[in-house]
């Protein structure tokens, strides 16, 4: 692959890392929030729901800006985390945070829909057999929502690969640290004649995302076959 320079390879690897961790780490939260929204009634539910969707509604730049003033080293949360050694500003972790936040509404919606499709009667059946709430969740609910979890994960992953506005605003564009594929593509597109190199990176993005997509489809099909038509 001579046609990719070292900086581009760096961007690719970083993007994969960012997308992977963004997806993985946000997944438990995504499941928890989806569960909350699908199954519980509580005061302020509309607020939580709105908050989750916020990154979708706001222009990404605004989200990035909000992340910056919240999770930056001077920000209220960032300041608290820094002593613990958790730093987002100008780190790949920040890119992952931005990607996770941007993908969160997509993930939550997919998982939530799956929660809503689970027949509570099966969960009841499990509880009559002695399974506590947690066990019911792990042995019945979770396997049944797996297609939705997969769908949510792949959406978040794809989004993470494509995310640019919030990321560059939050952690800017530091080659090797926060320069993701999307930032690199954007950079190329800013200058006349940059379409060629940009296109190469777009191709890489697409290939990566298609791989993830195919993998998730295959997995989902296996899961579906197992669950199908009971």
């Amino acid at each position, binding site marked *: 692959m001579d046609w990719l320079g070292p900086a581009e390879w760096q961007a690719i690897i970083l993007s994969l890392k960012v997308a992977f961790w963004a997806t993985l780490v946000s997944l438990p939260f995504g499941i928890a929030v989806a569960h909350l929204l699908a199954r519980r009634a509580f005061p302020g539910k509309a607020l939580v729901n709105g908050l989750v969707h916020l990154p979708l509604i706001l222009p990404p730049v605004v989200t990035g800006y909000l992340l910056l003033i919240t999770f930056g080293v001077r920000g209220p949360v960032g300041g608290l985390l820094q002593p613990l050694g958790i730093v987002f500003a100008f780190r790949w972790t920040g890119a992952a945070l931005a990607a996770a936040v941007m993908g969160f509404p997509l993930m939550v919606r997919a998982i939530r829909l799956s929660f809503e499709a689970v027949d509570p*009667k099966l969960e009841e059946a499990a*509880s*009559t*057999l*002695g*399974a*506590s709430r947690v066990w019911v969740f792990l042995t*019945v609910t979770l396997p049944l929502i797996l297609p939705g979890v997969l769908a949510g994960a792949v959406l978040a992953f794809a989004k993470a690969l494509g995310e640019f506005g919030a990321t560059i605003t939050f952690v800017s564009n530091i080659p090797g640290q926060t320069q993701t594929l999307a930032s690199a593509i954007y950079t190329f597109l800013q200058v006349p004649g940059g379409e060629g190199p940009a296109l190469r990176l777009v191709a890489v993005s697409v290939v990566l995302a298609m791989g993830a997509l195919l993998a998730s489809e295959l997995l989902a099909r296996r899961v579906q076959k197992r669950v199908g038509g*009971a």
Partner: protein
Amino acid sequence: MSVSVRVSHRQGDFLLDAAFEAPPGITVLFGRSGSGKTTLVNAVAGLLRPQAGRIAVGDQVLFDSAAGVFLPTHRRRLGYVFQEGRLFPHLSVRQNLLYGRWFAPKGARREDLGRVAEMLGIGPLLERRPGDLSGGEKQRVAIGRALLASPGLILADEPLAALDEARKAEILPYFERLRAEVPILYVSHSAAEVARLATTVVVLEKGRVVRQGPAAEVLADPAVTPVGARAAGAILEAVVVRHHADGLSELQAGGHPLFLPQVGQAPGSRLRVRIAAHDVILSRGRPDGLSALNILPGVVHEVRGGEGPGAIVSVDTGAGRLLARVTRRSAEALGLGPGVACHAVIKSVAVAPEDVGGR
């Protein structure tokens, strides 16, 4: 262990307001479609939190609205056979069967997968998914799943409804055996099942208990039995004497011989034999040249008019009290009344295999 239930719960237009006390054994909930049987069972399971009431099994209180007690379902140690299967679609039959076992206290594991699977005829299905099973197969897996949880209380909501007679006959003895070990709440529409299994019968009507009591007593009362007089019958205690070469088994009930189609138990075993009221014919004189083998002399105890043209005559014989369902016209023609001597004629073949059970 005895079961004590008092529940008041409104659900849409329907008000469940039922209370019963049941001694150890199988308590059968009997009642027409929509009378509240499933709702009541769900309350006992904790799937429904009744608006008021108290539910206890032995001295364990599962629910008490006054005391604010509500034991969560998973801590009630249940084995619930649902009316509609509810198998886990993502697990194999084997995994479904073993599901409850993970959660059962180690010491309590009573049942063995292999034995239960064989009894239910689902051995060859163990690696299949519930989605690929026939209706009756699903139902049998659901029964197995509940039994293998080694429950302290079994709830069974029409567990055998989807099964053929032969299969029912294979499963019934299992419940009979369990009767001695675990309290069982059993919903059924089948008179034969009720008669054979029930220790106690609770009759529901529109959410209320209209009759409850020992099985023999409730079933002998044609006025309340919801399936009509067909369910009335008496239960005799008998001992197996010997098996004859022609396929008949000779039993003895209160010193009187009783010939029945071959029963499974060995000589010396004690049995419950249900004699349905409509399978007994009464005769004033000793009948002769009849194809019926069992003819027991006795004395009429009582004649009760039932619904329609029938009457239930209870006759005290040496073998125990028998019920006979006759037309009122016959009762009058024969002059039957308390104290009148007569003979009860029971056809051997009228006693179906499902009417004979261990005790």
